[in-house]
């Protein structure tokens, strides 16, 4: 990432339509989620259990992954290991070519967006068709997703009608939701029926049984995982859960946190291949792509508990104003601000840990209790700082380290009627006063009053 978060946020902050779309959508989801969570009496215990199950898997991840591999192989699946995006994309493209296909249908998958699979396949002459309605909208628009769960959250109905009329070749449409989804259905149905390869991500991969789990709302995902002869699933190594029974916890946490539903409409589970039913060939690609960097970090490790529900996006006051694109990653919002620096390396995303006021709303809703503010602060400690800022922060710390120095600095600050150290930061007063007046400094510090009155 060459630009910083504040630079990327600027456009969104000035786009009033975008801010209205975002505010409407996030407020609606936020309120629905709160109601869906309120009706579960043991919600807090479920969160604790979910966090513990993920931590258990992460504590012995290498063993769990080998267990998963063995179970998948026993059930007729083929397992591949990919260190990074290039390796994963190469494996998938080779498999698609070997299957003799030039078009694949895809289940909505953040992991494939993360590795840029569609572009990599296109470079090998393979067309990837997104089948999740919102992903399809984003794909047809040549756009990038801006929300984990609602990739087209930045678009309204009228914008989508215009896009469909322009790209689907089905004639004029109204902005009635039923008409719009009907048009998408006509377009997609033809592609489901002719596809020879389906590609999916996974919400969970069960080590104990080798079972893959995908949850979705539309049923289009299930078309991709059952109709084509070959199914390729790409899964980040952090998606492993120890036992099948653990899904009993996660399948309660995930839908209520993400779509505010008691249960998601479609939950697909499959284990290897079954003669006469579903795909004849199943490939599982296990992806690292920076995840082991988080695993190696004692504070940052909890980031890998994430089940991609997007509850943190919907409550984040920063995300609500900037939208997802400002985060420069397929993982936007608070979770993106901590996950992306691990995936791409902190040096390539140094502004993300600062893209938060540390208000804590994200940590309150996280279904697996990721302490996002704590990880943000931890990551801030690992970014390179501007030299002038470092100098003034060290000078301030030195002044605070001794009463005499502190009191001299305090008198100086009050005499100059400005905030100590602020003058040394690059242009901060200008940034402050663009929308705020500076406070009027008092004539006397508290301690001077205390010494006079009580000393």
């Amino acid at each position: 990432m060459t630009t910083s978060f504040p630079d990327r946020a600027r456009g969104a902050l000035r786009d009033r339509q975008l801010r209205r779309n975002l505010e409407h959508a996030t407020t609606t989801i936020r309120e629905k989620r709160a109601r869906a969570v309120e009706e579960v009496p043991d919600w807090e215990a479920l969160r604790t259990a979910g966090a513990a199950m993920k931590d258990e898997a992460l504590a012995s991840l290498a063993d769990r992954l080998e267990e998963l591999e063995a179970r998948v192989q026993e059930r007729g699946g083929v397992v591949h290991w990919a260190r990074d995006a290039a390796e994963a994309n190469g494996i998938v493209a080779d498999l698609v070519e070997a299957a003799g296909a030039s078009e694949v249908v895809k289940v909505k998958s953040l992991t494939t967006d993360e590795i840029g699979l569609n572009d990599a396949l296109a470079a090998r002459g393979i067309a990837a068709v997104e089948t999740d309605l919102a992903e399809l909208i984003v794909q047809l628009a040549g756009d990038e997703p801006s929300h984990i769960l609602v990739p087209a959250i930045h678009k309204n109905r009228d914008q989508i009608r215009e896009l469909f009329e322009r790209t689907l070749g089905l004639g004029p449409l109204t902005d009635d939701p039923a008409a719009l989804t009907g048009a998408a259905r006509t377009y997609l149905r033809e592609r489901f029926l002719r596809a020879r390869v389906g590609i999916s991500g996974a919400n969970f991969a069960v080590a104990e049984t080798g079972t893959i789990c995908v949850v979705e709302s539309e049923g289009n995902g299930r078309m991709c995982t059952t109709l084509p002869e070959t199914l390729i699933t790409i899964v980040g190594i952090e998606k492993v859960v120890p036992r099948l029974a653990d899904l009993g916890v996660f399948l309660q946490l995930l839908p209520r946190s993400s779509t505010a539903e008691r249960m998601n409409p479609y939950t697909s589970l499959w284990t290897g291949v079954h003669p006469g039913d579903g795909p004849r060939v199943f490939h599982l690609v296990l992806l690292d792509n920076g995840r082991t960097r988080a695993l190696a970090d004692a504070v940052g490790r909890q980031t890998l508990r994430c089940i991609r529900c997007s509850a943190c996006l919907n409550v984040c006051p920063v995300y609500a104003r900037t939208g997802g694109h400002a985060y420069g990653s397929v993982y936007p919002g608070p979770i993106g601000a901590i996950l992306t620096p691990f995936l791409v390396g902190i040096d390539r995303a140094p502004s993300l840990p600062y893209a938060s006021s540390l208000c804590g709303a994200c940590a309150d809703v996280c279904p697996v209790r990721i302490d996002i503010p704590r990880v943000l602060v931890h990551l801030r400690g690992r970014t390179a700082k501007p030299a002038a800022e470092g100098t003034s922060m060290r000078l301030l710390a030195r002044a605070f380290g001794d009463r005499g120095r502190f009191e001299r600095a305090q008198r100086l600050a009050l005499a100059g009627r400005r905030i100590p150290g602020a003058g040394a930061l690059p242009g901060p007063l200008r940034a402050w006063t663009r929308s705020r007046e500076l406070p009027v400094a008092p004539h006397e510090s508290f301690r001077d009053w205390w010494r006079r009155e009580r000393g």
Partner: protein
Amino acid sequence: MRIALFLACFNDTFFPSTGRAVVELLERLGHEVEFPLEQTCCGQMHANSGYEYEAASLARRFESVFGDHHVVVSPSASCVGFVREATALGPRVFELTELLVDTLGVEDVGASFPHRVTYHPTCHGLRGLRLGDRPLRLLRAVRGIELVELPRAEECCGFGGTFAVKNAEVSSAMLADKLDSIVSTGASVCAAGDNSCLMHIGGGLRRVGAAARPLHLAEILAARE
């Protein structure tokens, strides 16, 4: 009760009236207030800005300054939150409304403040310390006060320490919405438990020429108007 005041460097320097209010309030309730002059900064700003080494050394200094005091009170929810996490003195450090409601068991502090007031629960008080309705219970008992509910009260005002500078435009967008909420209440005073947030909100209120002024909760609880 002997109570040590941990005022926070920011209040000591820029908001002495808040410190005086805490002293007057606690003395009026019959307690003895001490102000250890060795106190400077707890290290919160350094910690939140990614200067772990400096933060840790200031946190150790806080421990040595307040180590001999059994009850410590602070009118800064964010500093209390940091001190609880980063020092061994956590259990004996109380945010002002915690001390009043939980430790001293008082809600009516004998204040009188005949103004229309709206209360903004700051993030560190609301989600950090889980102050709940303690501040509102104290405010409701103030004579003459007209307390009006702040719409979308739980949303961050956009201050966030260095966030207000590093992401000034996002911070300003958050502030603009908070100002709209405050102005919509018709209150003449916006109260909160953190002067840092209030400095940001107050700076915005003055910029847009709003009638409401920022005021620390302690100054309302100390008032005898």
